[in-house]
């Protein structure tokens, strides 16, 4: 049994964030598939014992249990990437990467929620969320227009970091909640480069080109 156990659902984009990080870092792990839809197993007693919040993903690393995709990314990067490639050590770069990593949990939460409603709910009341999600994607596109002009392909520093990793799924999956990629040329470019990283893999909703 690997030291790492991930409790996850295949269609959940926050679980995908963690699976990507594990893959980029080349870490072996066990997966426990949780019946999130329709079973809500993550809110059951057994899962609440691990994570009282009843959310996914949950990562068990030895005796420690972590929840929340961004916290897990930070933990995995710090613990397994001593050079600080994915989460820089230098203070200013660290803060800049964390700023975008938080963005994926705050401004992009509307994107994540809009997708959840579109895929798993009968309610069709997600237009406000989608508007907010589009606004967040525009901020990202504006940022990447300027980054590209300065000769960079990534959100911060000169290589991919957990900022890119935490932001990417919401854009890659945006068609699930009805936002096309037409209006985001700089993000399209970024997505194409991200797909080429060794260890990248897709999830349902993100096409595999064969």
């Amino acid at each position, binding site marked *: 049994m690997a030291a790492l156990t991930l409790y996850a659902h295949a269609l959940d984009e926050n679980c995908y964030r963690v699976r990507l990080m594990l893959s980029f870092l080349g870490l072996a792990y066990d997966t426990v598939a949780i019946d999130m839809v329709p079973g809500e197993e993550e809110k059951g007693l057994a899962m609440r014992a691990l994570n009282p919040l009843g959310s996914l993903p949950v990562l068990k690393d030895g005796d420690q249990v972590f929840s929340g995709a961004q916290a897990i990314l930070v933990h995995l990067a710090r613990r397994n990437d001593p050079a600080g490639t994915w989460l820089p050590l230098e203070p200013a770069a660290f803060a800049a990467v964390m700023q975008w990593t938080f963005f994926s949990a705050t401004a992009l939460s509307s994107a994540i929620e809009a997708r959840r409603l579109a895929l798993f709910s009968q309610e069709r009341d997600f237009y406000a969320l989608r508007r907010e999600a589009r606004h967040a994607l525009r901020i990202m596109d504006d940022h990447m*227009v*300027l980054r590209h002009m*300065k000769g960079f392909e990534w959100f911060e520093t000169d290589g991919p970091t957990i900022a890119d990793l935490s932001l990417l799924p919401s854009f890659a999956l945006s068609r699930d909640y009805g936002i*096309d990629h*037409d*209006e985001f*040329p700089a993000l399209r*470019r970024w997505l194409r480069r991200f797909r080429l990283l060794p260890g990248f893999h897709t999830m349902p909703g993100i*096409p595999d080109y064969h």
Partner: protein
Amino acid sequence: MSGEADWVPVALSASIEPGTSAGAVVEGLELVVWRDDAGKAHVWEDRCPHRGMRMSFGFVRGDHIACLYHGWSYDAAGQCRHIPAHPDLDVPKTIRITTYDAGEAGGMIWARLAGAAETGHPPPDFGNTLPVRSLYADCSLAHALAVLKQTYLPGGKGKTVVGQLQAVAPHVWTLEGDALRLSIAIQVIGPQNVGLHILVNEGSKETIADVAQWAVALRLTLEAPVVLAEVM
């Protein structure tokens, strides 16, 4: 209208890298803009004849584009050449996608859409330009032009000046300040959606990064709720 009017702008050339595709909408018509591996740009109707999947979701291989859904693959003339579920089938000539004339000039990809007469005119070229960005805004063309007419431009040394807006070709305007000359090709997506493809003309002193920042502010202005003037 002159022959050039047939050409509508659909993307900055730089935004469509070789071997990639993207969607673009012109007055409600969904298009796929793609560039083959050899660098030639194509503009087609964005619909796979099989089950109607958008071709812009698909992927380019060499000079073919394949549909994401079941992998039907089309050659540069829009003719279906390969159906993975029936690999030995000689694909009927009737399975093809509507293609449009595509051309590149002035750093832009242009398309001549259905109904436009073949006049032999090339797409408008407005000299040597550097691409800045495509800016998408939720407003009408008329509103965009009204705003551009009274927009401040970076004027060098921290100054701002009101730019001079001039129509130079169908769908193309220049906006000129002291130190800056922009070309803006406008794609009308729908009644309340436009794409502004912004380029800087050679010899302008502002950096393209400054113009890109300016463009973000422009989008805020374009989308600001219109306040009716108070009538005394």
